[in-house]
């Protein structure tokens, strides 16, 4: 029999975690890959070192947190330039974050984030998981300075997310493409580059490279309005990476992507990580996050219900009752045998399906074979 790769898939019923509220059918599918590399965990220093306090950069946001002296402008740029990714300086420091929306005709307030506390160290890759409506996108939008918090303290690189230098150092990939649909892909990237004061030639080079990497080079002169959902997703990630940000906020980056796109994005994110970029990735599919992220943060109804690496998360939730064992290289007889063994032990084999990573690997090999 071929070599086996053991995968354990655990189903966590989040209704157990937020009792007494009834979450109905909300279920988080959590896969834990039993690979040594994925098991490492970056110790997170919640109250770690902070960026130096500078009087002139004070931002007067009204919130419940005590007034802070925040660096901005030149001081913040200097902080960013000299920042060592290996330091445990919290790139993202969120305390007591509350964010609500008005919904419906009467504008009833809906609280999306309930006093969230989160700290992410420099160079760390953190995955946000949770069902739809759990507040993942809201958190990312607040960190990208697109939304403003109702209360609480949000600091990115030790400063307000609204600060110009913070925005320059942050790349955000929203859930749906918001870019002008009447513009061509390369023109949008040129516009974004110019807004971020990138040198024209460097911007063009980087844009061409990114479009090539995400497989959109052949449609660089096409209008975004003609792009499919998957193409727009790839484009959004290219746009977020254009200026090589030190912090990358990705909202459902792989939604709607085919395996080829998934592989391309994966490789780009690997490179970003190698440069020391801090990543915060949201997804409702843990399969997107478990390999890449050292830490997973589970959000339910705007609250963090658990965090840690994949193993710790499963253990802390105490939800190992339902498991899926995934094998590679099994033939039909072996699968039948497995089914019999499971039945003999009072269990049930739920399903047999190819893993998505196999398809990704297939595309990778195909692409490698095509290269000269």
């Amino acid at each position, binding site marked *: 029999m071929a070599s086996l790769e053991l995968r354990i898939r655990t189903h966590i019923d989040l209704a157990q975690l937020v009792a007494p509220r009834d979450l109905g059918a909300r279920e988080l599918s959590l896969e834990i890959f039993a690979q040594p590399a994925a098991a490492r965990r970056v110790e997170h220093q919640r109250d770690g070192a902070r960026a130096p306090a500078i009087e002139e950069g004070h931002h007067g946001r009204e919130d419940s947190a005590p007034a802070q002296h925040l660096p901005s402008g030149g001081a913040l740029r200097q902080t960013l330039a000299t920042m060592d990714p290996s330091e445990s300086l919290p790139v993202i420091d969120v305390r007591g974050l509350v*964010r*609500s*929306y*008005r919904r419906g005709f009467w*504008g009833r*307030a*809906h609280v999306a984030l309930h006093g969230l506390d989160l700290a992410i160290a420099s160079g760390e890759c953190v995955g946000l998981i949770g069902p739809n409506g759990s507040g993942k996108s809201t958190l990312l*939008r607040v960190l*990208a*300075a*697109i*939304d*403003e*918090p*109702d209360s609480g303290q949000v600091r990115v690189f030790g400063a307000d997310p609204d600060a*110009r*230098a913070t*925005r*320059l150092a*942050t790349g*955000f990939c*929203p859930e*749906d493409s*918001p*870019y*002008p649909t*009447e*513009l061509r892909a390369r*023109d949008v990237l*040129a*516009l*974004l580059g*110019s*807004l*971020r*004061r990138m040198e024209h030639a460097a911007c063009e080079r980087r844009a061409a490279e990114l479009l090539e990497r995400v497989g959109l080079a052949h449609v660089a002169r096409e209008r975004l309005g003609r792009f499919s959902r998957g193409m727009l997703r790839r484009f959004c990630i290219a*746009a977020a990476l254009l200026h090589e940000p030190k912090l990358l906020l990705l909202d459902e980056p792989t939604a709607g992507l085919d395996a080829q796109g998934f592989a391309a994005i994966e490789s780009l994110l690997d490179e970003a990580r190698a440069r020391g970029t801090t990543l915060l990735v949201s997804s409702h599919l843990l399969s997107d996050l478990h390999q890449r992220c050292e830490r997973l943060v589970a959000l339910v109804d705007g609250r963090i219900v658990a965090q840690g690496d994949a193993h710790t998360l499963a253990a802390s939730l105490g939800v190992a009752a339902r498991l899926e064992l995934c094998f590679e290289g099994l033939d039909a007889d072996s699968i039948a045998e497995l089914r019999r063994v499971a039945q003999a032990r009072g269990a049930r084999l739920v399903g047999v399906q190819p893993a998505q990573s196999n398809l990704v690997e297939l595309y990778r090999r195909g692409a490698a074979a095509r290269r000269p």
Partner: protein
Amino acid sequence: MNLRLAALAVRRVAPWWLALALALVGVLAASSAASSLPAASALARQGVWSVLALLATLTFVPRAAGLAARFSSLEFGWVGAQPLSRARWFATCLAGSLAAALAVCALAATLAESSARFDGASLREVGLAGVAERGVLDLRESVRWSVEAEAGETLRVELSCVNIEPTAEVEWRARRGGEQRRVRATISRPQALELAVPAGVGPVELELERTSGGALVVLSGERMQRLVPCGSSRSASLALACHALLAWSALMALALGLAPWIGTRLAAALALVVPLAAWLAGSAFADDISPTGALVRALEVAGRGLVPALPSLAEVACAAACSAVGCVLFVRGLGRERGGA
């Protein structure tokens, strides 16, 4: 200012079909203007500019509102993450919108001047002066008032009559120091009287008298014009372009500012209702405070064969105030939803 963002604004504010419409107006104007008489040329110029100004206003203002509304809602996901400040974002959008307006102005001037064949000397308006409060003249009655005016200027007053009898004779006199000028005319329909300002210093004393005839003479309007000689009547288009640009900048700034708060349609409607209300009010004061009041007046002046005055400080201040209001509304309203409940 970010040129690429401004280019995006130009693209969104000036639709491709506007160029087609302008070309059509140009063809119609060129084919209908055969006369080289000053009055016919003036009317042709006024016609082309009026149509284009109306067309461009009804196009630019709603589209500027749409530009801001899109940035504020659908596209805020990328707009909000950019390091450009809101005020600069507004300024860039307004500059882009004005660039589109400038292109239309250039085209309108070309079309208007190609349809107006007369390019001889004319009179240019340099300012306005008040007229007597009591503006109805019965027989042997006269009205007196004084104005500040320079020697070499010409004063122009609009008269009309109530035809109890077909005509009336009037005499208009201007006196300064020992110098006196006078002009006599028979009034049978609305018409203008022009009188050269006497030399000297100090205020000019003016007297308008109905000397004979049975018609009741009425001083039209609340103001009279101060005119100076002008080399070519074609400079009317330059003045009209300046007025149009200021009017559009004010209206588009208001539309840009209102759209994030009340949406495209309401913002455009509200921005357009301001000049409409001022026009309906019909008073000089309403014209002064309306962003388009000076443009409408300039079009009237051009239709009389005169060259309109360049924008006054008050007109520039009005456009600047509208832009400032638009900017504040835009800065506070862009991505309004981000503020939360």
